């Protein structure tokens, strides 16, 4: 007999053996219970998405993201250079916000997801810690987009200013979407699956 809690509603079930093509589901909320194979599959999916997001992360950060033209003064900057410019001009608060939310958090989240789904280098206790961190970071993942929206709004106010998006925007949006998908796909049960099966 194998007891398993539904990870949606928490009701504990007696999970019977199922054959291929079948799954056990919660009697209360119809959530499908993960099994070892399914866990491995979601881990693979997460890994694929995380790798894709990780690849896109670099052009998103390094290529020019906005081009501002004001009275002929043209300035194109990438996320990284823009952040460094903010620091150089003494805008420490905004600089730190952009640096943390747009550069540090996404890459940390991606690295952690990769570790959890693909690399599996950490000890299980650290895995739990990594997973919690991923969850926390994920909540802030929209913050940078919000900031960008504010920036566009402010810049658009000046009628003499022209504002263009650079190629990095595509990479950035794709990266955000992929990393969100990756964290949605991730089934935390997979972290401990191997120990269960061992």
């Amino acid at each position, binding site marked *: *007999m194998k*007891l*398993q809690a539904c990870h949606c509603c928490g*009701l*504990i*079930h*007696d*999970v*019977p053996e*199922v054959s*291929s*093509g*079948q*799954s*056990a*589901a*919660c*009697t209360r909320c*119809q959530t*499908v*219970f993960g*099994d070892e*194979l*399914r866990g*491995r*599959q*979601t881990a*693979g*999916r997460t*890994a*694929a*998405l995380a*790798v*894709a*997001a990780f*690849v*896109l992360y*670099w*052009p998103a950060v390094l*290529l*020019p993201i906005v081009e501002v033209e004001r*009275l*002929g*003064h*043209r*300035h*194109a900057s990438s996320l990284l250079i823009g952040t460094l410019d903010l620091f150089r001009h003494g805008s420490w608060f905004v600089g730190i916000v952009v640096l943390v939310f747009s550069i540090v958090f996404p890459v940390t989240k991606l690295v952690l997801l990769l570790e959890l789904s693909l690399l599996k280098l950490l000890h299980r206790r650290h895995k739990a810690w990594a997973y919690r961190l991923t969850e926390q970071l994920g909540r802030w993942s929209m913050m940078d987009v919000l900031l960008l929206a504010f920036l566009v709004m402010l810049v658009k106010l000046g009628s003499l200013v022209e504002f263009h998006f*650079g*190629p990095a925007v*595509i*990479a950035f949006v*794709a990266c955000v979407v*992929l990393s969100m998908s990756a964290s949605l796909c991730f089934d935390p049960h997979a972290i401990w699956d191997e120990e269960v099966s061992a």
Partner: protein
Amino acid sequence: MSTPSPAPSSSASFPTAVVVPTRAARSTTRLWWLTLVTVVGAIALVAMSLKSHGPTIKIRFAEGHGLKAGDVLRFRGIAVGEVTEVVLTPDLGRVAVKVQLEPKATHVARRGSQFWIERPRVSLSRVSGLETVVGAKFLGVIPGPSDGPAATEFDGIESPPTLNEPESIEITIRFREGHGLQVGDPLRHRGIVVGEVTSVDLNHELSAVAVRVRLVGEAHHLAREGTQFWVERPRVSVMEVRGLDTLVGGRYLAVSPGHDDAKPRDEFEGLDVAPVVDVPAGALEIVLHAPQRWGVDRGVPVTYRGLRVGQVLSVGLSSDGTSLEARAFVESRYRSLVRQNSVFWSTSGVDVSVGFSGFQLTADTLASIAQGGVAFATPAEPGPAANTGQRFLYAKSPQEEWLTWQPRIAATDAALSNDAQLPIPQRAVARWEERSFGFRRTRERAGWLLLLSNGNLLGPADVLLPTENALGPILLEIAGQELVLVADRVQRFGSLATFHPDDFKADGLTAWKTASIRHDASDPEDCLAVTDSQSPPIPIAASSLQARSSDWDVRSATGLSAAHHGAAVISVKDGRLIGQLLFDRGKASIATIRE
């Protein structure tokens, strides 16, 4: 999915999970293709943004003028590159600007390309770069010759060339004095900008100014031996007022080209002052010599009977220092007045003589009071025509008899061979009264008539035979006399007519010899239209004439008007009269004389 139903539980406390059919789970995911696509996409994105960059070039400027990274390089108003870096050179002597070119604009970086920093420039001669007052500075470029090899390092120029012509040559002119000439000042020929100053430098000895000038387009023909350059600047004297445009309009270089067939040259000595005038085409150049200067100076007029006919070009000592020599010219229209036995004298200053008869003041033109002048007279029996380079002794004052000489010398034109005379047509007006719509109206028709040696007046038929229904006689006013046009004395042939007046007093009028009339002119040829002696003959080229029976139509009637109706037309070839010019309703034609 089947409807889940509660399963019987084996142990009372836990429900048994329902079994639902799902897709078979696989140990690996098919999602890796997405990763692959993403990798390819990322590589493409990076490649694209790297590829949109052309080569980087480096330009050195003496001044940065506030240029900074992000400013653009423009060619013909289009951005073709972007400044990536502005740094001082290690020796702090110059500013090095690195420019990332766009791939489409790699060709602007080749040897000979000129770069400058566009900035607001407001000077008396021009206003440019106003867009950079509030906007960003930008770099401008004019590419070098199209066959030039690619280059990556350039020396920038201070100001944009005004003439955006890639085809140009540079010449050097040395001046003793710069007169405030600046880089960018134009070189003008006949009032048109044909080049510009690209640099003004002192030489090592600080004794001269070397001005480099870029000549564009056709102006490169100016770079030949004999071409004279000078700095035009305001000059006001009794003789002339010139260069006033440079008072407010900035200095410019002026040029007087050398001879057409002179050898090319690219180094010149500039003149301190403008040459007096260009010697007009066909003018007679003569040399005057005298023991003293007697008020003769460069630029003073040469007069005949007080009328200005030429100018003194230069004054200097003869080679052995024994006398003073002056070079002068007489305009082509008046060159026939100068004969080998002509005499010249100075008219400078005011001649005040107080005698028993009273106070006498003699002066020539206002200019000659201040600056002097040269007058000449030709004896009543004129000698052979003077030739270019003829030397004349020049006296301090005229002898009495010189002033009484009254030679008859026909004015001629340079286009005609020597001694060919010009006819002197007389202005005539035919007046008559006629009835139109029941009213009597006075009508008139004016034109030029030519007195022939057989006593006939030759003229347009519409002046000599204006109408057949005149009320009363048709009066012809000519040479201060009034004649009655009698129809049976008028003989018409084609568009011309002759009138033989019986009571015409032709004293003092020059009649045109009938022997000098050519009747067989059939093909258009180069000719001159002559009216009175005060206005120069109007040359009409054969190429602008079109034969139409006995008349030749003048294709372009520029310079001709109704005032030339009846002008005598003589052939340039032999100086003979071949017809008369008719002008009717805006169209000019030449009526040739037939038998």
